[in-house]
């Protein structure tokens, strides 16, 4: 477990006074202070870490967020921003001396502008909610993290979320036009807007993925895109991870960029098939889900080309979906992967390293060896086109030794990712989970450079403290 420093006693001692101060700023239901009601906020998508916060506020407007921030700044109280609480890295983990600013009540879609292909939404709108609001006109919001039914756009901005389709459409940062944010002092700022590209410094780019370290995001202007005429998936199963990896390289080298290119290893195939009955080949060592877009004829042509490439790699089976229903079945297993693994193991850790795609076979081999030496099962799901690896490490949370081993195993995988030229996290963020691994990827000069940027926005380090940056010189 990553150790958290003790809370500030001088803040805990002022709890009643702080809660009264917050109540003066918000409607009655907007401040939660009763221990029983605070309990649901004690954790996020990384449930091995828990801490009940000092209080939770649920503002409904940017003005209320600003008032809360100004109050907390004036009184030296730390703040943890929170969307849906789906972070897999503990990005929304509270602290005992911190106020959680929950943005879930800011859930209104403010403007949809099809001519300029943008939507303005509050931070608490769910990711899928944006697409649902515009799909009647054939539009969609591209980034599609697995948690998209629940996760909120404000959290997506803070974590720079990706998804299965970012090989074609990019991650959150590539799909934003503007933000409304509140500074740690409680000042409201508009960053970007309805136009493309800043003339000054790229604050939009810096704030995206900043994990609540720099500002609180309250409104987001996203790009919405017109969807393609259609999309269709195919399955290709292979005799080894190496062969499947070579096939991925060969597809990309042919000039085809599928909109999605997902890789599952044998344990992942078995777990997902048992759960979803998607017709996955159980005799395969590795399987690819490949999706293409366009008219039916364009889909046929692309899938034919891809099948021909796959055919050169001695596939166990190739299955081209013939209908939307078949494509949905193919995806059902992949999208249900977390639930599927949850069925065969009481608990699991979902890792998020990125590797150069050429390193895939070697990395999977090393993970297999680690799995044996730690005596913990692992299933690998991989956004093969962009190198984002999601090993799911299975353990038993009721056994502290098992959790400890799983965390060590995960850390070893991430170190391996950096060693082969990759990085610690592709879309889940550093949060608390990977905070102490940052030194593997960055040297002290680089960490200090980032800390100075953090200090430029948040001189007192009140925002989402004790995360992202290793504690050593954390103010």
């Amino acid at each position, binding site marked *: 477990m990553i150790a958290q420093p003790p809370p500030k006693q001088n803040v805990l001692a002022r709890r009643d006074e702080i809660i009264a101060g917050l109540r003066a700023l918000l409607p009655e239901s907007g401040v939660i202070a009763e221990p029983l009601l605070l309990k649901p906020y004690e954790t996020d998508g990384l449930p091995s870490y828990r801490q009940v916060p000092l209080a939770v506020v649920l503002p409904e407007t940017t003005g209320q967020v600003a008032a809360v921030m100004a109050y907390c700044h004036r009184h030296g109280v730390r703040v943890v921003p929170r969307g849906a609480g789906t972070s897999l890295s503990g990005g929304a983990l509270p602290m005992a001396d911190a106020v959680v600013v929950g943005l879930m009540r800011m859930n209104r879609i403010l403007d949809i*502008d*099809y*001519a*300029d*292909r943008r939507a303005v939404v509050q931070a608490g709108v769910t990711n899928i909610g944006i697409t649902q609001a515009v799909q009647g006109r*054939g*539009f969609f919001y591209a980034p599609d993290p697995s948690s998209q039914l629940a996760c909120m756009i404000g959290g997506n901005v803070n*974590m*720079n979320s990706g998804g299965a389709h970012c*090989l074609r459409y990019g*991650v959150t*940062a*590539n799909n934003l036009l503007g933000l409304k944010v509140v*500074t740690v002092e409680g*000042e409201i700022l508009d960053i970007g*807007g*309805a136009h493309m*590209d*800043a*003339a*000054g*410094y*790229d604050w939009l*780019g*810096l704030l995206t*993925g*900043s994990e609540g*370290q720099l500002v609180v995001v309250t409104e987001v202007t996203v790009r919405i895109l*017109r*969807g*393609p005429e259609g999309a269709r998936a195919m399955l290709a199963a292979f005799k080894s991870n190496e062969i499947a990896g070579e096939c991925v390289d060969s597809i*990309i080298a042919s000039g*085809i960029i599928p909109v999605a290119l997902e890789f599952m290893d044998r344990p992942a195939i078995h777990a997902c098939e048992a759960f979803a009955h998607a017709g996955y080949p159980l005799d395969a060592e590795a399987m690819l889900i490949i999706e293409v877009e*366009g*008219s039916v004829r*364009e889909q046929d*042509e692309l899938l034919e080309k891809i099948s021909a490439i796959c055919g050169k790699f001695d596939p166990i089976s190739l299955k081209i979906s013939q209908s939307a229903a078949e494509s949905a079945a193919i995806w059902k297993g992949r999208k249900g992967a977390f639930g599927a693994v949850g069925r065969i193991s009481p608990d699991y850790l979902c890792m998020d390293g*990125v590797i*150069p795609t*050429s390193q895939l076979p070697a990395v999977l081999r090393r993970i297999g060896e680690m799995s044996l030496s730690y005596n913990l099962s692992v299933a690998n799901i991989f956004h093969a086109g*962009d*190198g*984002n690896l999601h090993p799911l490490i299975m353990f038993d949370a009721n056994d502290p030794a098992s959790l400890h081993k799983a965390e060590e195993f995960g850390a070893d995988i991430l170190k391996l990712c950096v060693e082969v*030229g*990759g*990085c*610690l996290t*592709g*879309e889940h963020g*550093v949060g608390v989970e990977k905070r102490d691994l*940052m030194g593997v*990827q960055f040297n002290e*000069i*680089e960490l200090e*450079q*980032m800390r*100075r*940027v953090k200090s*430029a*926005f948040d001189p007192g380090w009140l925002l989402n403290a004790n995360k992202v940056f290793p504690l050593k010189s954390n103010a």
Partner: protein
Amino acid sequence: MSGVLAPSDEAAMAAVIATAHSNAEPLLIQGNASKQAMLRPVQAARTVSARGISGISLYSSSELILTAGAGTPIAEISAAVAEKGQHIISETPDFAALLGTDAAPTLGGAVAANMSGPRRVAWGAMRDHVLGVRAVNGIGETIHSGGRVLKNVTGLDICKLLAGSHGTLAVLTEVTLKVLPAPERRATLVFKDLPPDVAVAALAAALGSPYAVSAAAHLPAALAARVPALAWLGGAVTLARIEDFAGSVAYRADRLRGEMAAFGAAEMLDDAASQAAWAAVRDALPLAPEQGAVWRVSVRPSAGPAVARAVEQGFGGAWFFDWGGGLVWVTGPATEEAHAVVCEAARAAGGTWMLLRAPEALRAAVAVIPPEVPVLAAITRRVKAAFDPKGILNPGRMFAGL
């Protein structure tokens, strides 16, 4: 001004900057200086160039990545990736003709200026494809951000902050870019003689279609006449590009032409004519013969026509649209009055602007990019100090006094 210092590697660059830092000596930072005539003039004792740090150190076409020294000419990178049938995604412009220079743009310069061409509207800006950088900050420390993989959210995204910072925060020494397969074929639909607001509506319809339009521009007759690939059409032109495999291009262009029949019967530019036309749009070539100032105004696309009207009425300015109307290229007299008209038009449209070309006196006298509100300007000063505490890197290039 003494000669240009051009260190041949990153360690030498770091040593030069560290010395300047300890002497508090301001430096003009550049690559090949192809964009030196942009933005505010820099007062500096010495000039430091990254052009000596040149060459492609890694190109993995199956991983879609390329790493090169910041001083590597863009043309060298384009040629290297073209050999594998790939391209630089954001279609970065070459302003040699516009700015009256024969200097070849470098990778570092293209990233430091975050300049993107027509494909930006569909595939993102230069900064969207910067996967990693190495750089020397104003203290002389070497830092890296990002890496050589396509997805990376580890730590603050310093790559994006440095992209578009015009050498004021750190000197880029190496950049890793995402590249993609180049299209097999291009085609461009051309609608003739549409008034500006109808043209932008047509481009919105094209970009809002399911046919993956990758560029959308409109040139009034006088400017279209300066582009050989467009002059034969003899009027204002509204352009929508489709690029992909040959079969897809033929199919989608046909469908799009049918669905946009309300805007008139579209002509079609073939692959070669498309390449020539879009290179002209990318580099703003139709504005190059003009004597006056050149501005780049970025607004929401539907506000493009209002900006065009404002500059026409304000000073008889000439203009054309890229990015579906969202990028308005403007030319007119290099005066503070004309500049004020452009700034007001951009502000009224909720957008932003850059004075891209003007005599040095005007660039020194006016704000070349919009001033920030006080709260943000204070953050800008603190972030500048976080990288360059003595203010030695390109002082005053973006904002006076910074």
